[in-house]
Every structure is written in C-alpha cells, then in structure tokens.
C-alpha cells in the first residue's frame, strides 16, 4: 500500500495524466482499511467513495480539471460532519446521528477532487490524549499495537501511518493533532486559531478548537492548508489567510533564530525523547540556524492548569445542547421531561465527558467563577505576553510534543490527571492561538518521536518552510 504514502502532488499528477485512476486509489484505500481493521483506526467506511471515484475518473476522461486533490482518498476524523453519513464524535451520545450538512473543511477538500473513504476513531468528543476515551474502543498504535496512538485524533494519525488513505483530517484543541502525529510517526499540523473554518465540526472548546491534518509529507500539509484556509461566513471567528501556503516558502534555515524551550525538556522528560529532540536541534544548527535557549515559565504547569479550567468550562457549555430531544441518544425510560434530560445525559455521555462537564460547571458556578474561570483567563493573558516577548527574539520555537513516546494502553486510564499531563508540551500553543507542527524526528526504543515547531500566530508560511527544511534534514520523508 506504499502507493498511498507517496507525495500528493505526484499522485494527483498521475491521476490527471491517466497513469493512475481515482478508482484504483480508492480501491487500494478500501482494501487497506479492511486489511488493518484490527487497529481500529476507522469507525465507518463511506459507501459513496467508489461511486465518487468513478465520477472523478469520468470527468478526467472528459478532459476536465478535477482539482488539486483529484482522486485522492482521505479519512475524516469522526467529529467532522459529513453529509448524510454517521458523525458520532466516537460517542454513544451521537451514535445514531447522521449529519444533514457538511463541514466547510470537508467541502473544500471535496471541491478539489478529494474522496472521503472513511471516518476515523477519536477520544469521544475529542476529550483525551490516547483514543482510550472513545466510546467504541481504542485505536492501537501502528508501530506497537500494545500502545496508544495518542489522541484525540489517534484514528487519523494511525490511519495515515498505516497507509489507509493519503491523508486524514484532525482537530487540535490542546494536543489532539500533534501528540498522535508524534506517537505514530506522521506529520501533523494545527494552524492558528481561525485560519480554517470550524463550521460543521463538533464543538469542544470554542475559543481553542483548530482544524488541521495529518500527512506523510510536509509538502502535502502545505497543499491541504492552502486548500482549507479561508474566511467563512458560517464561522465568524475565521481570519484572513495568506495568499499561498505552497508557493515560495522559505525553507532555508540559515540565519533563522530558533528558541529551544527549556521548560519542554524539563526533569520529567524521557531521556530517549530528549536525545531525539537535541539531535534534531543539532542538525538545524548545522544547517545554519542559530538556536538559543529560551524560557517560557508559564508554558507548562500553569498553562495546563489554566487549560483544564477553561476547556471544561467551554466543554460544559458546548455539551449542554445534548438534551435527548432534538438529536442524539435519548433514554428509553423517562416519564417526565426532566427525566429525559437527566437520564439521557447520564447514559449517553462517557466518564470523561461527564468529568469535563462537571468541572466546567463547577468553575463557572456562582462563587467560584472569579477564583477559577476568570483567574485562568488572566493567566491566559500572561501566557500570551510571554510568547509575544519570546517571539521578539526568535523566529520559531522548538521542543518535543510530549515528555514521553507512545505509552501503553491502559497505563494512564486509571488516573485522569495523568492523562491530562500528557498534554503538557502542547496546550500553551492553543491558549495563545499560535500555530505548530509535529515532524517525525527519529525514534526511541523503536517508538516514533516528533519534533514540535511553533510559530507566532498566523506564521504558517514560516512554519511550513521550516518544517520542510527539518523534514529534509532528518530524512523523515518516506
């Protein structure tokens, strides 16, 4: 199935020239999905995929330009609404739900000829760092099936690593693209908040949620960001984009100033992870980058504490819409309207969704709001100032995505706080609204480790250019 891991530009060129057909690619993808069912990366296969592939092939035969992703099979994380197919967010609450409309990001991909072949597993409602919170069972890490793929976009990362499709969509609210990309050995990027429309994506933390992707190559990522980024009248938080995320990227590290975040390699860091990151940094220096140590004192524990107040608060508000009446799970044995709410929400939500709703309700409740919620919002401001100050001195930041490589299934499920701590190197980026990418950098004890590059808000062009350079240096391209 190595075909599906080739660079998108090559595949698309061959589809346009007739050397490859969309039907061949989609068939290969569907076969790979079937062959790797044991990993549980995929929740549902799209019945419409083959018909769409045939339509694309017919258009090409008729001499039409089908687009920059002609015939490319992809997998959507199952929190993206996809027209008339199940969109469950891997939750029992949304198990019966069929989307009446489609996410803007999916519309953009399909408009360029891409074909959605399946929906990927995730932590239910994207709450988690391992996919073990999926109400339908965890995804297994492609490199070692006794380990987690990371989360919440674990199904997406595993699918790309396994070559089930050419790319997958993901969402990142605190770590959910970068952590699984790092754990599975693929490229994963979260653009700045607002660059890609959130319309049609199941809301988690509305002031944090970003839409991104997982790919095998940084050039693929450039293309996907270029296709998906746009102002959307249906998402009032979308921002102006750059003219291109593909053309004339600066991928020369010479003279670039890069800050190595010292707090991201603190005491608790796995020595193997540290070694991979420092080796990557050495190569960046050899390529002419000036790497200096920088300190972001609030970026680890305080950021995580702030995140785990603000996120549950936003989650509790977003999940208030699940009432057992308009859509989603509804209890069988309610006698009154109040019963419908109480029982449907108790039976339909998994343990982690309940924990977040309860914490969120607590920190927003009368008497606690100022001490928790408002204080966390103020710490968010302090963190933004810290990043702004550091970015006056450096072009980019570098560090790991997590202090450890992929951990064992079950290792952190008994203690929710231990699971939260897996996000310690990633949440700050979401709090400040900037952009970051994980690029495969090496391995420790046979497990992939990605290096995280962080750029200032809306610095996607600089980030993608640097990622391309790092990819070439580390020989990470398949």
């Amino acid at each position, binding site marked *: 199935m190595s075909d599906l891991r080739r660079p998108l530009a090559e595949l698309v060129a061959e589809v346009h020239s007739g050397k490859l057909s969309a039907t061949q690619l989609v068939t290969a993808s569907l076969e790979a999905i079937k062959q790797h069912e044991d990993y549980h990366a995929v929740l549902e296969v799209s019945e419409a995929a083959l018909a769409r592939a045939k339509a694309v092939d017919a258009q090409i035969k008729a001499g039409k330009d089908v687009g920059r992703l002609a015939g490319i099979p992809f997998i959507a994380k199952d929190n993206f609404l996809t027209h008339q197919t199940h969109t469950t967010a891997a939750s029992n609450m949304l198990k*019966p*739900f*069929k989307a*009446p*409309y489609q996410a803007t990001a999916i519309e953009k991909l399909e408009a360029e000829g891409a074909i959605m072949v399946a929906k990927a597993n995730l932590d239910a409602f994207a709450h988690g760092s391992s996919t073990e919170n999926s109400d339908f069972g965890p995804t297994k890490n492609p490199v070692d099936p006794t380990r987690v793929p990371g989360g919440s976009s674990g199904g997406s990362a595993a699918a790309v690593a396994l070559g089930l499709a050419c790319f997958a969509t993901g969402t990142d609210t605190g770590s959910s693209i970068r952590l699984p990309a790092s754990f599975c050995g693929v490229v994963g990027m979260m653009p700045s*908040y607002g660059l890609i429309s959130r319309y049609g994506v199941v809301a988690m933390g509305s*002031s944090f949620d970003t839409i991104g992707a997982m790919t095998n190559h940084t050039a693929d990522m450039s293309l996907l960001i270029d296709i998906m980024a746009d102002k959307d009248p249906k998402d*009032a*938080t979308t*921002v102006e984009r750059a003219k291109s995320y593909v053309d004339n990227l600066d991928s020369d590290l010479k003279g670039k100033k890069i800050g190595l975040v010292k707090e991201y390699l603190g005491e608790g860091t796995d020595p193997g992870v540290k070694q991979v990151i420092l080796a990557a940094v050495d190569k960046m220096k050899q390529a002419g980058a000036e790497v200096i140590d920088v300190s972001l004192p609030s970026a680890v524990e*305080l950021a*995580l*504490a*702030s995140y*785990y*107040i603000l996120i549950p608060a936003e989650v509790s508000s977003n999940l*208030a819409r699940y009432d*057992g*009446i*308009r*859509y*989603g*799970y*509804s209890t069988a044995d309610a*006698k*009154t*309207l109040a*019963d*419908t*709410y*109480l*029982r449907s*929400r*108790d039976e339909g*939500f998994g343990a982690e969704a*309940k*924990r977040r*709703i*309860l*914490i969120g*309700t*607590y920190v927003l*409740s009368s008497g606690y709001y100022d*001490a*928790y919620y*408002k*204080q*966390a*919002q*103020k*710490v*968010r*401001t*302090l963190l933004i100032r810290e990043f702004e100050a550091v970015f006056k001195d450096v072009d980019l930041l570098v560090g790991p995505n997590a202090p450890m490589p992929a951990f064992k299934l079950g290792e952190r499920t008994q*203690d*929710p*706080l231990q699971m*939260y701590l897996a996000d310690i190197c990633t949440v700050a980026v979401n709090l*400040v*609204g900037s952009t970051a990418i994980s690029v495969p950098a090496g391995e420790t004890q046979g497990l992939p480790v990605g290096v995280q590059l962080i750029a200032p808000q809306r610095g996607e062009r600089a980030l993608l250019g640097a990622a391309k350079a790092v990819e070439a240096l580390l020989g990470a391209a398949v």
Partner: protein
Amino acid sequence: MSKITPDEVRRIAALANIGLEEAEIERMAAELDKIVGFVEQLQDVDTSDVPPTDQVTGLVDVVRPDEVRSDYTRDELLANAPDQQDGFFKVKRVL
C-alpha cells in the same frame, strides 16, 4: 482537605442536568478533587491589573446580512429526532 465532596458533586450534577448514579458520585468526587487540586495552583499567580482573555483573534463585531434561508426541509431537520409527532419534536410531560 478535599474541596469536591460527594455533596458538591450532587450540586454540580444537578446544575448540569446529569442524573449520576450513587456509585459514580463517589468515584467522581475523588477524581474531580484531584483535578481541582492540580488547577488550584493558579491561585498563587499574581494577576492584579491583568485583563482576562476571551478570544485570541482580535476580531470584533463580525456581522453578516440577516437573511432568511431555507436550506433544509422540516423532515430533514427532524430526521435525527429520537421522538416526533406531526412534524414536531415530541417531549415527555413537563410536570
């Protein structure tokens, strides 16, 4: 001292309209107490004169024309309803 007691969980669960089972209340109290214990460290940060951040884009007053559209039929929008009657969402008695 634990901040999140089983009684506190009952209070919050009622606010959030989740009818937790008794055994789950005990378990949640222990787990949530640990989480609140962790986030508690924010209390030590001096934030006097620091404004809160609600959003990171800096966008203000984003508007679009207020136009009536009919993208969906009633049937399409009711298709996911657990219970319906005569084109309406059906609910259990209120009292």
